[in-house]
């Protein structure tokens, strides 16, 4: 069993053009910076990206967009990116907007072997279009399908060589859900340790869900909205 790869280039080596990728993160928090850089370098296009957001101009998935590698985004919020808007309005880019909780739960459903889930979000709105509606106990639910993704690319704080992952703070977000959902799951971590160095009770994603792991480098971890208070 060897899940460790040398770097992001090796981790994404066989991702083909036209693949469906899940990319972890919320805004720019907890995004797989190294793998995104390698995907940009690799230049494969026609990607379908499932990710809560689409990065910003010049960072995160924004880099893939600028490089015209993305055919379709499946996201809940894409408002931070001018290039995204340009491509969308020009028809170069497709977008499927999914309520955030639905997006998260459809990832989890995949990882838990559930083909579909009933969720309330979007009932009575345009999100309902084309979906089965069902009533349980007087409330209405939409039948939402589990995602089918070729690769899931996530970023963790720590990981061990067996693929066990630990996330830090709100950088957890979609990462463990997507990690469960990839046919092949790639994890980049800030610190790669030996098996046994992480307390088995603290592991968020068991290694069984992770196929490739490497220690990333040069994390910028850009802050989108720097808000502070004054001392005193």
């Amino acid at each position: 069993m060897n899940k460790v790869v040398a770097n992001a280039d090796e981790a994404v080596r066989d991702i083909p053009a036209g693949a469906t990728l899940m990319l972890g993160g919320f805004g720019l928090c907890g995004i797989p910076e190294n793998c995104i850089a390698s995907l940009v370098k690799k230049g494969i296009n026609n990607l379908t990206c499932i990710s809560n957001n689409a990065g910003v101009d010049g960072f995160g998935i924004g880099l893939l967009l600028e490089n015209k590698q993305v055919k379709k985004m499946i996201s809940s919020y894409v408002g931070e990116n001018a290039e995204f808007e340009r491509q969308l309005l020009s028809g170069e880019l497709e977008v499927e907007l999914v309520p955030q909780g639905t997006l998260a739960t459809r990832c989890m459903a995949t990882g838990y072997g559930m083909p579909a889930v009933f969720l309330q979000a979007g009932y009575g709105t345009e999100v309902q279009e084309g979906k089965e509606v069902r009533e349980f106990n007087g409330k209405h639910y939409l039948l939402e399908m589990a995602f089918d993704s070729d690769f899931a690319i996530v970023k963790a704080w720590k990981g061990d060589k067996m693929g066990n992952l630990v996330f830090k703070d709100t950088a957890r977000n979609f990462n463990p859900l997507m990690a469960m959902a990839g046919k092949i799951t790639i994890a980049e971590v800030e610190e790669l340790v030996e098996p046994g160095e992480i307390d088995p009770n603290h592991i968020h994603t068991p290694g069984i869900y992770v196929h490739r792991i490497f220690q990333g480098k040069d994390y910028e971890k850009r802050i989108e909205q720097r808000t502070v208070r004054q001392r005193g």
Partner: protein
Amino acid sequence: MPLNKEQIAKRIAQELQDGFYVNLGIGIPTLVANYIPEGVNVVLQSENGLLGMGPFPFEGEEDADLINAGKQTITTLPGSSFFDSAMSFGMIRAGKVDLTVLGAMEVSENGDIANWKIPKKMVKGMGGAMDLVAAAKNIIVAMQHTNPKGESKLLPKCSLPLTGVNCVRKIVSDLGVFDVTADGFVCLEYAPGVTIEEIKAKTAGKLTIAADVKEMTV
């Protein structure tokens, strides 16, 4: 005088009860956290995966791994917990969050809400708003009573694409406090200096004035 944003937030803060778990949306709702009454302990939920959101960090102590749903740097408090996005919306759907406060572009007299999309404008996405309004057990909308053109945002029927149906229970606008009932909007309080006549004139949806209507205390 219509309320300013801080006053709207302050009035909503009076709705908080000790022990409440609360989700505050972006904009005016965020300001509610500044006016939590003394002796009332609430836990703020941020739907990107945190219970127990604290204030902004001191300068120099920002952590890129610790943000709220508005992508702002924040802090934790003793007793905070982190979780993934599925659990976050799971607890919302299961009714564990006691109160959700969010903004709206339009609310209809039956409690429909529109706050995510304007036709012909760039669509940014619904984020977590549809999940929140579909499942929260108690939703208060914080909003201006009229749009910049002076048109009522409390309508018989929303004209914009909906975020959720029949879900808003209460509105605090710059003009007053309103319950949303089976019988339409019911004005419970009016802002200091605002007349019932002004409220009537600026409310397009069905409006009743509560028998015990009173001036708001803010």
